[in-house]
């Protein structure tokens, strides 16, 4: 058992996500930075679908009641286990009674904590991921608070076989310099004026304080739509189209652009002008409020190559761990 001593700003239990229910309006949830979630799990010998703690800006403090192994991945976060520094991206042994104290991320926004065998909470619709907007999954469907008690799974890797595992630096993203988000343009980019369509990919967009698991609202020039008579079924605002499904990562334009993330509404009538590719959504999840991002147009083929490249990095990390 793990006792939560301090919950942090926004800490939730997440796994790979909740799939197969998008059509009824249920978003997948799951780790915002999937890459770091997977690295954290690999370090302690877990499968990728084990649930980790996603800690946002500020970490959780935890007391461990059982022996085990933990690892931190993603945004660098100072952490101490009974006063001893816990390095990032390394599997560390934890003994019953020890307490982990964490601080604020020094760059990036989200740090993942894995424990051997994963956090065990009941699956809801096939996933342990927390979806706080409707209060399901994870621990009571909410962010963690002091006093919560978490149970870990069974049959974790034997500590001696995983303690000391590290992820090679060259396979980890450079969070500080990763502000380019490759984006497949469409489906509704035709609604933008030529000038606005160019601006979308030319300017730096600033992440606002309204940037969470639902979406990232960005600040920048006002984009303009081509004037038209709104078709039947579309709302009256020029940003409205006849309802469409929103891809995860899609950029919609209520006024300021919002990149929809893993807890977002699944469809509606805002023009979605592009979609940030899966490979780069982990990077977006690490951009801090007030940092900037740029959209770089790519083809679907380039997006698939980028996905392969992320999988290659994960495979290289797993190979390095298996030694």
């Amino acid at each position: 058992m793990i006792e939560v001593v301090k919950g942090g700003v926004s800490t939730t239990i997440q796994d790979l996500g909740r799939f197969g229910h998008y059509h009824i309006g249920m978003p997948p949830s799951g780790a915002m930075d999937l890459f770091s979630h997977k690295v954290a799990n690999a370090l302690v010998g877990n499968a990728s679908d084990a649930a980790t703690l996603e800690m946002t800006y500020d970490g959780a403090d935890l007391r461990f009641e059982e022996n085990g192994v933990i690892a931190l991945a993603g945004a660098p976060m100072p952490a101490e286990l009974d006063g001893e520094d816990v390095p990032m991206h390394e599997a560390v042994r934890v003994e019953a009674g020890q307490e982990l104290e964490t601080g604020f991320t020094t760059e990036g926004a989200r740090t993942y904590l894995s424990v051997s065998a994963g956090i065990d909470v009941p699956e809801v619709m096939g996933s342990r991921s927390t979806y706080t907007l409707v209060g399901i999954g994870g621990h009571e469907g909410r962010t963690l608070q002091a006093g919560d008690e978490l149970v870990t799974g069974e049959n974790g890797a034997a500590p001696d076989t995983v303690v000391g595992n590290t992820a090679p630096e060259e396979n980890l993203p450079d969070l500080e310099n990763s502000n380019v988000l490759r984006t497949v343009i469409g489906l509704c980019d035709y609604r933008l004026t030529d000038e606005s369509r160019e601006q979308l990919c030319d300017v730096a967009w600033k992440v606002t304080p309204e940037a969470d698991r639902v979406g990232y609202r960005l600040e920048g020039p006002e984009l303009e739509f081509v004037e038209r008579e709104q078709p039947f079924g579309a709302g009256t605002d020029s940003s409205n189209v006849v309802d469409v499904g929103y891809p995860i990562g899609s950029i919609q334009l209520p006024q300021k652009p919002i990149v929809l993330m893993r807890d977002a509404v699944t469809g509606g009538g805002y023009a979605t002008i592009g979609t940030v590719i899966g490979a780069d959504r982990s990077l977006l999840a690490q951009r801090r409020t007030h940092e900037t991002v740029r959209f770089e147009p790519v083809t679907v083929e380039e997006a698939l190559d980028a996905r392969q490249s992320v999988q290659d990095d994960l495979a290289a990390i797993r190979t390095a761990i298996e030694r």
Partner: protein
Amino acid sequence: MATEHLAAPMPGVFYRRSDPDEPLMVEIGDDVSEGDTVALIGVMKNFHDITAPHDGTVTDILVENEGEVEAGQKLIELTIED
């Protein structure tokens, strides 16, 4: 007398009220006790309390209410009696 600056631990928006209808949590000249919440940092609709690390007097407030702040930015100057 020593002065100490309370800094923002994360980027976000600096709030001097716990709610728009509430009075300011502290003003320049106020005495505060260790552990008192003197301001909030809001990000992602979550709020982090900025608390006084010691007893002291607020001698400066360096950011406007609802101003944007960066991680590490100085927010409030606290003067502590030796």
